[in-house]
């Protein structure tokens, strides 16, 4: 990988983006795994879902996202990093709509739009600080 590309890849904020996509994919896979069996048989402690390969694919993706998250946490303040990872509240409903065909009401769209505005506000000072480096 060329050095500059590696530099972009290793940027904590770029990793935050990579991580949130991985979390989204992982949650969708786990939802598919958990509902693979008839509801109820999985139990409140969802161990039964481990019988599905979807769940395992979700776990692998989740572990990858976790490695990325630990890297982010090393450089970005926890409060900021966790606020920014809220982008999954936008990505997961969108993913659930596209891939699992769950419905999004107009009210929910409005909520998603507010989350996006909030994220931009949190991100702004972080980007400014990054530019100074």
């Amino acid at each position: 990988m060329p050095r500059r590309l590696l530099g972009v890849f290793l940027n904590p904020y770029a990793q935050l983006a990579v991580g949130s996509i991985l979390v989204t994919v992982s949650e969708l896979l786990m939802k598919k795994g958990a509902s693979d069996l008839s509801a109820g048989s999985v139990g409140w402690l969802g161990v039964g879902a481990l019988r599905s390969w979807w769940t395992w694919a979700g776990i692998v993706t989740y572990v990858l996202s976790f490695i990325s998250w630990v890297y982010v946490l090393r450089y970005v303040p926890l409060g900021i990093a966790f606020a920014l990872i809220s982008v999954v509240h936008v990505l997961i409903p969108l993913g659930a709509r596209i891939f699992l065909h769950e419905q999004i009401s107009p009210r929910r769209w409005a909520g998603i739009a507010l989350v996006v505005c909030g994220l931009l506000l949190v991100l702004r000072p972080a980007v400014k600080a990054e530019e100074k480096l």
Partner: protein
Amino acid sequence: MKPLTLAGILLCTLCQALMVGGQLLLKRSIATGEGRPARRGTIRNFIAGIACLTLWFFIWLGLLSQWDISKLYPFEGLNPAIMAIAAWLLLKEKMPVSAWFGLVLVCVGIAIVAGS
């Protein structure tokens, strides 16, 4: 899909506590610069953090099997606010005022999503 029951709400709250505690422990263990604990404490914090998040994971999986993902996720949505306050109080992290304002927008947005 059925609406959330009291047991479901309690489990969601437990999930939140595990998530916040786990992240604080992790951050403390791997943070660079001042306030970095001694090595033994580092490893202990890291393992304790992972233990919290592992428990969180299995309870979350159980919740996912019972309810729609879009019904559960908003609960986790209060986490950014709890996390920022905890990081401010316990890790002495500072956030600009505009970022706090952004955080409020995120939480209100998620609350609207939760109510819909």
